[in-house]
């Protein structure tokens, strides 16, 4: 037996087992080929040792021991998940179950480097800094925008790998600490809150430090600060308090969120670290007194208590914080506030209420899913949305009556399925458009990236671009120009997916208004995905995405974990992500079910998930 055949056979056994479990969970799938055929059929025609299409030899990948974190694995997974491989020219397409099996097979080739799934120490984001300062000292530090910008990675601020404290940044923190401290000491109520007048400093300081550092202070941390005050005894009381507050606000234990694990088991988070992860994820702030108490006696380490604390926090602060932090970053919602459609073509953009209203609609929708515990698939399709007068006009809905809230927003039942869910929102539709025209390509990318956690590579530099307007060029419509583009083999594999997804939304204009015609021609919103699914308009697209709901929930879970844990999900996380999706599905994909599945997962509770709680490795 040649080495190649042998290795494929070993892999075949693995994938057969996987298929068995996949087929079991999706009962009516047809029977599947074993891996040699799947690989031969779908990949090896081009990606073999001789042709090495795209410099990728699938036989070599499956032949030897995989190197840790082999980038080819991530690439293969991305291309499979985005439906951009196999290319449209392929004879047959894998169906959903076969595609998932292929993804899993590739993911299994990635051996994680030891420690590669441990998040790097994180720096407070500006949003967190402001919230933490407010919760700790009662100061609303609106000048937080004078701090240097956050550095995003993997779609989120506050990923430790790219966030350091440079000299410029430390100076900015110094300026901020001076301003905050000055505000506390001159305002008696704030001063007495930080330093209760009848309590000796030796008692109140440890309490202040515990809340600031999100863990009990070490004796030296208290002693050195008291020693500092002795050295500064010539200063006034206020001068001393100012110095003390600055020593708190500038400490690495305040500015950074370090996780070193338990003393006896560094792979696991200790109770305070777990409290921090939970609290920052759900409230963008430090643990409150109740959570610290649950950490102090270790009760938080019991999964049921962790879930209960999460429910309590969400009940107390509401889902809006998660919407303004997580969802706003996941969907890049803040960009809608500064995006500009061309005002000559779209004079509605002059209405200064329009863009904030677009943001508000999505934030309210997301918060409602949390607060009312709706299925997370409500993001794909909903029979209601939130509008104010401006949005109602844009959407052609009746203007809200007198029962609108103070901000003018009201929850409205929708007469049909054209709106409802992210796809019908002005925010999504404008974010994925150009100033003068819609972009089916960008809308397709948006759907793949946000809703399916799959990305297509950017076009090669010489790919060319479409006109900035949607006027026909040489008599050819945008659709016809894209169809020509798709004839180029190097363009086809991505555009065969992107274009039909995006064209399904063509009846929405740049701002998200509904249109039936463009330049006098009826809109053609039809298309077919590479695996055969026919699309025509947004309702069919929603149905298609609902059919792929497990992929959507997996995408949402992966993004929530990246946000909460501070590292991107990788191939090695795939089995645990699948378990989360299964548990969420068993709970009807209600928000509470997904949240509970996340909180009970070692991806959330462990510092290094390579080591499962029982000490066994993951596979």
């Amino acid at each position: 037996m040649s080495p190649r055949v042998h290795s494929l056979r070993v892999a075949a056994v693995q994938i057969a087992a996987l298929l068995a479990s996949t087929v079991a969970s999706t009962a009516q799938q047809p029977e599947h080929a074993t891996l040699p055929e799947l690989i031969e059929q779908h990949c090896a025609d081009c990606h073999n040792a001789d042709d090495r299409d795209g410099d990728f030899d699938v036989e070599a990948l499956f032949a030897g021991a995989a190197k840790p974190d082999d980038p080819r694995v991530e690439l293969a997974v991305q291309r499979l998940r985005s439906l951009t491989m196999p290319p449209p020219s392929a004879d047959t397409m894998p169906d959903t179950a076969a595609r998932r099996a292929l993804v899993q097979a590739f993911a299994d080739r990635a051996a994680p480097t030891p420690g590669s799934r441990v998040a790097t120490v994180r720096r407070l984001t500006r949003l967190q800094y402001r919230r933490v300062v407010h919760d700790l000292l009662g100061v609303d530090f609106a000048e937080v925008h004078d701090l240097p910008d956050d550095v995003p990675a993997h779609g989120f601020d506050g990923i430790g790998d790219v966030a350091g404290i440079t000299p410029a940044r430390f100076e900015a923190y110094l300026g901020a600490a001076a301003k905050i401290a000055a505000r506390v000491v001159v305002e008696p109520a704030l001063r007495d809150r930080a330093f209760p007048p009848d309590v000796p400093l030796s008692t109140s300081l440890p309490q202040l430090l515990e809340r600031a550092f999100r863990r009990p202070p070490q004796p030296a941390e208290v002693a050195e600060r008291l020693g500092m005050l002795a050295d500064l005894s010539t200063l006034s009381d206020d001068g001393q308090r100012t110095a003390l507050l600055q020593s708190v606000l500038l400490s690495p234990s305040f500015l950074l969120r370090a996780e070193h694990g338990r003393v006896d088991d560094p792979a696991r988070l200790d109770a305070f670290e777990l409290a921090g992860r939970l609290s920052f994820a759900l409230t963008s702030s430090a643990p409150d007194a109740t959570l610290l108490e649950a950490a102090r006696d270790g009760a938080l380490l019991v999964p049921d208590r962790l879930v209960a604390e999460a429910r309590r926090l969400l009940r107390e602060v509401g889902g809006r914080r998660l919407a303004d932090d997580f969802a706003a970053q996941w969907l890049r919602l803040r960009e809608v506030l500064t995006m500009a459609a061309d005002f000559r073509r779209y004079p509605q953009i002059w209405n200064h209420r329009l863009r904030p209203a677009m943001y508000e609609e999505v934030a309210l929708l997301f918060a409602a899913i949390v607060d009312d515990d709706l299925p997370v698939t409500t993001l794909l399709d909903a029979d209601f949305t939130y509008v104010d007068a401006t949005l109602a006009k844009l959407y052609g809905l009746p203007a809200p009556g007198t029962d609108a809230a103070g901000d003018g927003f009201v929850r409205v039942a929708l007469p049909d399925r054209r709106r409802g869910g992210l796809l019908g929102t002005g925010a999504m539709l404008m974010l994925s458009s150009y100033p003068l025209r819609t972009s089916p390509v960008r809308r397709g990318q948006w759907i793949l990236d946000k809703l399916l956690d799959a990305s297509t590579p950017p076009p090669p530099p010489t790919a060319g671009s479409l006109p900035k307007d949607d006027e026909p060029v040489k008599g050819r419509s945008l659709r016809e120009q894209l169809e020509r583009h798709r004839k180029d083999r190097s363009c086809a594999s991505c555009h065969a997916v992107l274009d039909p997804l995006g064209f399904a939304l063509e009846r929405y204009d740049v701002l998200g208004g509904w249109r039936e015609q463009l330049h006098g021609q009826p809109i053609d919103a039809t298309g077919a995905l590479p695996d055969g699914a026919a699309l025509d308009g947004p309702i069919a697209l929603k149905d298609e995405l609902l059919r792929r709901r497990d992929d959507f929930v997996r995408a949402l879970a992966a993004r929530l974990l990246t946000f909460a844990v501070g590292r991107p999900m990788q191939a090695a996380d795939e089995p645990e992500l699948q378990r989360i999706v299964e548990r969420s599905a068993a709970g009807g994909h209600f928000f509470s079910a997904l949240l509970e599945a996340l909180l009970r997962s070692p991806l959330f509770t462990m510092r290094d998930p390579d080591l499962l709680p029982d000490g066994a490795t993951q596979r």
Partner: protein
Amino acid sequence: MNSPLDRRTLLRGAGAALALPWLEAFAPRRGATPPEAPRRMAVLVMPNGVLPSAWTPIADEQGGYTPSFALEPLGELRSKVSVLTGLANKNSFDGDGHYAKVAPLLTGAHIRRTGGRDLENGVSMDQLAAQQLGGQTRLPSLELGCDPIYPVEDLGYSSVYGGTIAWSAKDRPCSKEIAPRRVFDRLFAAQALAADPARRSVLDVVKADADRLARQLGNRDRDKLAEYLDAVRALELRIDAAARAPHGAIDGAAAPPPGVPADYPTHLALMFDLIELAFATDSTRIVTFLMANEVSGRDFSFVDGCAGNFHEFSHHQDQAEKQEPYRRINRWHVEQFAALLRRLLRERDDGSTLLDSSLVVLASAMSDGNAHSPHDLPVLLAGGGDVPQGRLLAQRRDTPLCGLWLAMLRRFGLDLERFGDAERPLF
């Protein structure tokens, strides 16, 4: 502030020496007072490359050049500005996309492809110079920009690479300042910092916190704590420097308004004011300025005929209707460079100019943006001292750009054998 030598440098620069071929003119002449070494540098980087046909000037018989369309705005400054052609940064060849080209522009290093974990580049030439000058000014260096780091990766390269040209260590991108007011405050904050009687004590306490914390953490986290500690120490050095060399009154320098100006030309003009102010007050001698992050899609409506997306124009597909705005945007960047030079050419009290003692560079990490070409990079050099002025320095194809950085660093007193892929200085 300036020594009498500056005056001589000015006279030399403007005088007969320019008539000689540049190599000869700038070799040390027997009997002549050696020209004073430059003391300051400003490196400006523009994104998205240039249209070669609009950029490359025609050589004239004296070793100078007839300006191209893009270089016309240099006008009378042409006698001060040399154009370098044929340069390339070899370590940027094999990375795809924009980010992999701009990140190593000033480091000459090979960057690691990563979305965030284990960023790896080299130390950039400006930071080497700043370390060499260490403590002579109130601020070792200034890193300026106009855009926050974008939230999008480019072909698996972290957006940090696309938005950072100054690196103080191979894994430490320097955060750049984009708000003019913050730059101003930073330039003149040190004395206020030093005035706080509790400052030292507070810093001692947080340093002790960091030492303790570092002992509990793994390697990757320890590196972050080391960076934190270095930042605290940098601040202490700044306070020391402010005590040694307090700045005098800042005549006529009004603090810019807070925030980031929405109008791009205004934003750049404020940054240029600050560079001039920083040099004039000797607050720092090293400035890097990333005029926009790589892949910038800024709308250049404020330039006639350039409404639309800069990055898309750069992928012009040889179509005239895209090349035209692209080359106009290139030209606009040269106008900005010229505007900075004019500020630095204002005569000071002693008759010298800041440019006499400065090296100012405008460069991009790509030539033709259409194909992301890393060859024949657009590079302009202006300044005083013994560097070539008003010349077209046509180099062989793919001559190391790092040779220019090495030439500059040697003039800043660094005893370097090589830098990046360059084994000898360009001049």
